């Protein structure tokens, strides 16, 4: 299974990533892509920017581990994950997940599995910087906290 994980500040290029994945994916009939964008109106106050930080080294290793895990669950041939950090304006891309497989259901399942992981377990933290100058770190959702509790510590 081909797997490439990148955490970066800069934008990513969906078309370039799609071409690169297909080049290594072999005779894959199915490609599923998830792209996340910054929403501008999740809160009552308009968002100026979303600030993301992560744990360099640990983040990439953990995402790679979960991609390997996905490959044991579904017959997938290639995975690509790009996650951005830093300050991102509304509408900007945050995350890109691509999964190639011979089978569409495997590609869908693995992409959703990776996104669930990225949302609930990968070491990223978001801060909302609002248009009125205020800021707040985003609270983990209750369901995410329940998952987090099981990590111990």
């Amino acid at each position, binding site marked *: 299974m081909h797997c490439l994980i990148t955490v970066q500040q800069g934008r990513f290029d969906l078309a370039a990533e799609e071409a690169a994945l297909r080049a290594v994916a072999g005779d894959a009939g199915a490609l599923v892509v998830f792209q996340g964008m910054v929403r501008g109106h999740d809160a009552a106050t308009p968002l100026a920017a979303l600030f993301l930080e992560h744990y360099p080294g640990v983040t990439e290793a953990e995402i790679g581990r979960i991609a390997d895990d996905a490959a044991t669950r579904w017959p997938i041939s290639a995975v690509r994950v790009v996650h951005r950090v830093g300050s991102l304006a509304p509408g900007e891309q945050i*995350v890109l997940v691509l999964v190639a497989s011979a089978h569409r259901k495997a590609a869908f399942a693995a992409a959703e599995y990776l996104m669930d992981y*990225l949302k609930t377990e990968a070491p990223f933290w978001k801060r909302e910087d609002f248009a009125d100058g205020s800021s707040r*770190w985003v609270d983990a959702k209750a369901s995410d906290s329940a998952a987090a509790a099981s*990590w111990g*510590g």
Partner: protein
Amino acid sequence: MSIRILYFGRLKDALGRGEETLDWAGGDSAALLAALRGRGDDWAEALSAGKVFRLVVNQQVVRGEVPIPDGAEVGILPPVTGG
């Protein structure tokens, strides 16, 4: 022994620092957290057992109580909010 501690997300703001080097008598992860909580109410509150968080020792996610080696890098992670 000396260890390096990294704080992330809201813990940075709550504790007023992103990282520190700590001279410490040594022990396991539970002892380290107890020592940090002993620094005051802010620390006890921010690192309280009721608040879920994760420990990473030398870039490895750990579960439960684990030994902290001399010279270790220890990441203290609040609940994650990625994606």
